[in-house]
């Protein structure tokens, strides 16, 4: 609450200020529309596997715990079977994440990086947190036998991984939210305060429900594959009951989306809303309705017929997901439109300024005056010694007037010193100037000895 109050008061003070940085002065590698398509498609593939990994881990935990409570071996086996899919899906989730990451980097460079930096510590923590979660998943999967008699421990390992999985999406969601709200950039101080952005939590529950919905459907398919030897694996569990269960998970989660979805929409900052986007989202949501009706019918219909309409259901829901993904993009594009224009203008102004300053610096008068005065020895000095030696003042090393007095008429020793300095004075030592060749050494020594 405190955080919200803080943000609110900060809001009042700072609505006036939105930073407008300049963009990278390099063209996009591909036409923008193509990048958008790549971003939306690759992100959906990524999030699909993330859903399966997360939902899989959750259901593994659920069924293993159920087996433990009910003392039913079959649930234990079931959880192991689900765990096996999870460890594959999690690897896919990571590799599939690279493409949208690179694409969002390209399309929304400024916005994405700014959000990353503002929540920097937590953002980089994603890496170790995911590593730990994955290792825990393996530890869990490969100890089913070894920890058969210590179920609480075995469950605890998985619960820890699931706990991490519950937390990590918050980091991503915070960033994705922060990135499209440049007007909030001045208000956040690190991750925790950014968590208070209005849209983060509704989206989080939206994500969790989506994961359960997708995973329910996936597992329905997984266990009803012809190649899968269900009877050979389980003793008491009936495939029909399991199918009903997975359908129910998808059904329940999807119905919940009809409650959470509107909240997500309402809490979105208004700036990005457009009729176009709302139309896309509403269309997506309506496509899911026939799917839900079918699921309901199959759950309550004849046992022998369950699964017949599965392809239909999966197709409808896939379209829902595609529409949602596209709607999500539209929202982002609209939110950032004005800001992007300002950025573009700023970038162009900067480019012109850079060019102008370069021309000025290259103007011929300047060049000739400089080049004409420098002797070869002085050039060596400018490039190698100036950081530590001035003509008549002690910097890191003594002044060169002092040096000239020491080495009067003794060019050879001066050259020897420069090549291989000794240690005379208190303080730092001089590094050997081994990069100079004999001629340069001679030039600089000559030049020093002319100083008085």
């Amino acid at each position, binding site marked *: 609450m405190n955080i919200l109050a803080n943000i609110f008061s900060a809001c009042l003070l700072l609505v*006036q200020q*939105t*930073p*407008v*940085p*300049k963009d*990278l*002065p390099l*063209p996009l*590698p591909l036409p923008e529309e193509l990048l958008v398509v790549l971003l939306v498609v690759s992100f959906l593939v990524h999030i699909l596997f993330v859903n399966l990994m997360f939902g899989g881990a959750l259901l593994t935990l659920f069924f293993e715990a159920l087996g433990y409570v009910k003392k039913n071996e079959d649930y234990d086996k079931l959880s192991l079977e689900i765990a096996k899919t999870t460890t*594959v899906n999690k690897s*896919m989730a*990571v*590799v599939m994440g690279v*493409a949208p*990451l*690179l694409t969002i*980097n*390209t399309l929304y*460079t*400024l916005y994405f*990086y*700014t959000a*990353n*930096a*503002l929540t*920097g*510590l937590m*953002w*980089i923590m*994603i*890496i170790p947190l995911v*590593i730990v979660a*994955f290792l825990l998943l*393996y530890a869990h999967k490969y100890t089913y036998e070894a920890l058969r008699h210590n179920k609480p421990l075995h469950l605890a390992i998985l619960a820890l991984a699931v706990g991490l999985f519950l937390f990590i999406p918050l980091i991503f969601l915070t960033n994705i939210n922060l990135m499209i709200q440049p007007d909030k*950039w*001045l*208000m956040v*101080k*690190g991750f925790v305060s950014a968590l208070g952005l209005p849209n983060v939590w509704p989206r989080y529950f939206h994500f969790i429900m989506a994961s359960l919905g997708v995973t329910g459907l996936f597992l329905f398919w997984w266990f009803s594959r012809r190649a899968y030897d269900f009877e050979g694996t389980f003793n008491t569990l009936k495939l029909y009951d399991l199918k009903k269960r997975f359908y129910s998970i998808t059904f329940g989660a999807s119905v919940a989306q009809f409650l959470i979805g509107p909240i997500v929409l309402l809490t979105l900052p208004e700036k990005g809303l457009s009729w176009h986007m709302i139309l896309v989202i509403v269309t997506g949501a309506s496509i899911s309705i026939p799917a839900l009706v079918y699921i309901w019918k199959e759950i309550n219909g004849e046992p022998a017929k369950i699964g017949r309409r599965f392809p239909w259901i999966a197709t409808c829901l896939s379209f829902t997901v595609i529409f949602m993904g596209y709607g999500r993009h539209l929202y982002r594009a609209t939110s950032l439109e004005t*800001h992007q224009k300002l950025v573009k203008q*700023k970038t162009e102004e*900067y480019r012109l*300024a850079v060019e*102008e*300053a*370069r021309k*000025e610096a290259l103007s011929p008068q300047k060049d000739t005056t400089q080049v004409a005065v420098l002797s070869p020895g002085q050039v060596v000095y400018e*490039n*190698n010694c*100036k*950081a530590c030696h*001035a003509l008549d*003042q002690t910097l*890191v090393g003594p002044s060169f007037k002092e040096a000239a007095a020491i080495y009067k008429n003794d060019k050879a020793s001066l050259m020897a010193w420069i090549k291989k300095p000794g240690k005379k004075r*208190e*303080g*730092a030592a001089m*590094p050997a100037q*081994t990069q100079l060749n004999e001629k340069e050494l001679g030039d600089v020594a000559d030049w020093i000895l002319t100083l008085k």
Partner: protein
Amino acid sequence: MDFPIFHLDFFGDRLMIAVIAILHVLINHGLAVGLVPIVLCMEIKGLKDPTWDRLAYKILTVAFIITTTVGALTGVGIWFSSSLINPYSIGSLIRVFYGAWFVEWTVFVTEVILIMIYYLTWKKKHKTEAHQLVGKSYHVLTGYALAIFSWVTMAIIVAILGFMMDPGNWNNDRTFLSGFTNPIYVPQLTFRTFLALTTGGAVALCLTMFFTDKNSEIRKKSVRFLSKWIFAFIPFTLIAGFWYYLVIPEGMLKNMSVAVGTQQFQNYYEILRQVLMYSLGGVLLIVGFAFLYPRFTPPKWAFFIPVLLMFGLLGYFERVREFIRKPYVIGGYMYSNTFRVEDYPLLQRDGILKHSAFVSTKEVTAHNQYEAGKNVFLIACSRCHTTGGVNSLVEKFDNMYGNTGKPWGASAMKAYISNMHLSRYYMPPFPGNEKELDALIVYLKGIQFNSAPAEGVQNTGLELGTAKDQSLTSNP
């Protein structure tokens, strides 16, 4: 740099990138590129003698678990960390190399899918003996494919790295192909390949000690096999290492004197050679012993030594490679403070603060010198230095002025910073104007005796300077 500045004022930002990147390279070279061919050879031997097959599977289990967790995530972590710390340069690289990275990504996806197939179907049971044989030969084929794809992933990355090291190319032709044709590409790839194969051997040998019984037949056979493997690749590693060193472009060599460790080690070449010789020599010694006396082996942990030596060598080369790129992140185009070379005339005239969107001081005034100086530090020096942690500026200046405990001289500092790029090739020229330099010195002299960390935006949030120039902010 027109991004809010993330900064770790104790560990230093470079250290974070380095830890993640080096971890990734070690796993990629030691457990993927170098180890998969060994597992494959063992599996093939296992077609006749199942003890080989069992050992291969155990070794692969370790590789599988580590590569799909730490390996994969540090790979992503390289993006995360380098874009946090150097958003400008990584953003530029992505824009230019988008296509290359896309190709690299598809190869990487293939690699991950192959390793999952290879590992997870290893013990697949088939209905009949005949099916089993066919199944196994397909499995071996997957192994070949995996070995090839892990190598190709590396080959593409090396091209990108090589590109970044070669000055000039970026400005002349911004295409990915020049990454392959540049003079360091083949030597670097060759070196990495042999280094990876040797390291893979060391890792496999170490694991074998844990997975086989001391007096078993398989222990004897596998130690012989792996030591021969290592003996075979050490000479190639050595030759390729020197070849690689010889072709590192002239301009880059100038910096190499500080590349290795700190400045005191001016005789980098000696050290480089010594690291190469000693680590490979050490490996030879231990492996040779195991080869000659397979029954009489030292304690198991001793076999971590070759692995560590190889990892050390690998890490050392990475550090040198990273360092010789200085002062550029992208040779000739962008300095490692992430200003472009062509930005300099403007910034040195108008100042860096004026052209940064996210700073609390838009210009230096008589009243804000300390704070403005801190902003200048964050923009111009913090990518490589901290105030009091790793590569600390307080320590650097103290050392330079002889640790006298007296306040540093402002005019000496000014002369030094204005010219530091000339005598210290690894640092870019100071990018700001004179007022900003004065402010920086006020700040640095301030922290000389009264250290307060310079925190990044991840802790402090943003505060915008009141800009006189209205175009800098807006009311959308």
